[in-house]
């Protein structure tokens, strides 16, 4: 039995698997399949300063080996999260990450301040949501804006700060460097790739928002490539995500440079995927006489 625990920015996770924001709500539903301590951590549904109702449906479309979604950050607001969901989440024996999104830098800072006074374990800065009209990804697509918002939130944030990167950029390594320079404690990546599907009979986009974010197995090789590029550009720990569906994918993402992992879309077809991925990783480590999952991180031998 290998040691599956990992440490990111001083926070210990019992295993490297974290539920990805937006696929897991605030944990209550998947807590009806297995104890949430099955997961190393939970990145909660993205929260905003005030309640948001999200986009009109349809909000999802299936794609080859993936899905497009455009939920539009439906959430009850940071205060309701702190009052009604966080106390319960903190009793589940898993690391709790609050994922925050805003329309302005000031909103991000206000939320970071509020959450710093709670016992949330980490804060994930969502500057990569492609499905809202203002805010979200607009903060995440240039080095200047990433540096600016990271530095501002850093001042308001007493918790370890993860910056979640968008893949919809020209050079993701330089974006990661900007976050590092501005005081981020970790990088999580990748958010979804912007995509679109059209119903050829109605000529209407399937998603009401016209475009959505692509996730699932289809984006996995893109995510591996980007994690590898960023791992070569920054010293920060990376939480790798994007289409991880099997334990082999998990091992591959760790080898590319990730210290921990987030999984999301796979849960929709197999809610038990975290259990299976952890079992597979453990077996792989044992078979290779490795004692810790951290021994896999950034062990790719590039040509």
């Amino acid at each position, binding site marked *: 039995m290998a040691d599956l625990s990992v440490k990111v920015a001083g926070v210990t996770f019992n295993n490297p698997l974290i539920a990805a924001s*937006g*696929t*897991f*709500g605030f944990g209550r*539903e*998947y807590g*009806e*399949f*297995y104890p949430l301590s099955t997961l190393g951590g939970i990145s909660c*549904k993205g929260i905003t300063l005030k309640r948001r*109702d*999200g*986009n*009109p*449906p*349809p*909000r*999802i*479309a*299936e*794609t080859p*080996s*993936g*899905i497009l*979604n455009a*939920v539009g950050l*439906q959430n009850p607001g940071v205060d309701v999260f702190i009052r009604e969901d966080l106390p319960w989440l903190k009793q589940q024996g898993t690391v709790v990450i609050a994922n925050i999104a805003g329309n302005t830098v000031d909103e991000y800072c206000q939320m970071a301040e509020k959450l710093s006074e709670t016992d949330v374990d980490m804060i994930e800065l969502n500057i990569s949501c492609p499905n809202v009209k203002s805010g979200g990804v607009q903060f995440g697509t240039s080095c200047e804006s990433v540096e600016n918002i990271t530095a501002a939130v850093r001042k308001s944030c007493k918790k370890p700060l993860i910056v979640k990167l968008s893949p919809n950029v020209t050079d993701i390594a330089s974006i990661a460097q900007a976050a590092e320079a501005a005081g981020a404690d970790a990088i999580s990546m990748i958010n979804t790739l912007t995509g679109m599907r059209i119903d050829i009979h109605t000529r209407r986009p*399937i998603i009401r928002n016209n475009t959505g974010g692509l996730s*699932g*197995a289809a984006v996995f090789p893109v995510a591996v490539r980007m994690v590898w590029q960023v791992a070569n550009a920054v010293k920060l720990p990376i939480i790798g995500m994007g289409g991880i569906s099997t334990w082999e994918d998990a091992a591959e993402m760790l080898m590319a440079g990730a210290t921990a992992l987030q999984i999301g*879309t796979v*849960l*929709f*077809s*197999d*809610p*038990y995927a975290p259990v299976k991925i952890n079992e597979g990783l453990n077996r792989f480590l044992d078979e290779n006489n490795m004692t810790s999952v951290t021994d896999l991180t950034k062990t790719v031998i590039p040509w």
Partner: protein
Amino acid sequence: MKYDVRQLPLLSNEEIAHGIFDMRLAYRQDDLPVACGQFAHVYVPSKTLRRPISVCDASDGELRLVYQVKGAGTQIMSQMQPGSMVDVLGPLGHGFQIEKGRRYCLIGGGIGVPPMLLTAKQCEDPLIITGFRSKSLVILQEDFKALGETLLCTDDGSAGQKGFVTDLLRERIGEIDEVCACGPTPMLKAVAAVCREYGKPCQVSLEERMGCGVGACLVCAVKVRKNGEEIMQHVCKNGPVFQAEEVVF
């Protein structure tokens, strides 16, 4: 734990009307209690998303899912062979609330007809109205006849009366206490309007493109009015059955 995924043996999977299949799975009610109006979230090999299929019937060791081939996923489902195992999450969601001592009118339109069968089994002497585009799509008539009075209509008059379910509902609404309906959104909207006009309560089963099936991913949103405020709820968790007067169509 409230949710589980089970492998259920496929007993049969036959086409009962044009493009409409009747899948029967071996199942025990003790293991997997199911209420009328709930759905099964069916895993389709090679697909990223499960397919939510309403439960048509559950009895005698059989779970019955009647579905229409609409795309690649249901196409794969239609080719599943007896003897294979089907991966089912659920049954999920909140179904129809049926009370004793009330006379229900059950209305199904097209592929919204199947869940009304298990619902009819919970009702005393229901009035069952089903509507289809045309004769080639008519299903489950014999099953319904054993459970109550049935009225059939088609858009083109090729089977039953020519017209819409709402025409038949108007003729008979004086006889019933409450309506339960499942079908295309325009039909549900029309049924809800008739019920409002006559002051009859109405429950509607809604459909929306769905992800996780359990209320975590928030994609299958439906706007409802609660305490005078419009809020987003979700078909998979809060529904699929809603009180019609709460739905913002």
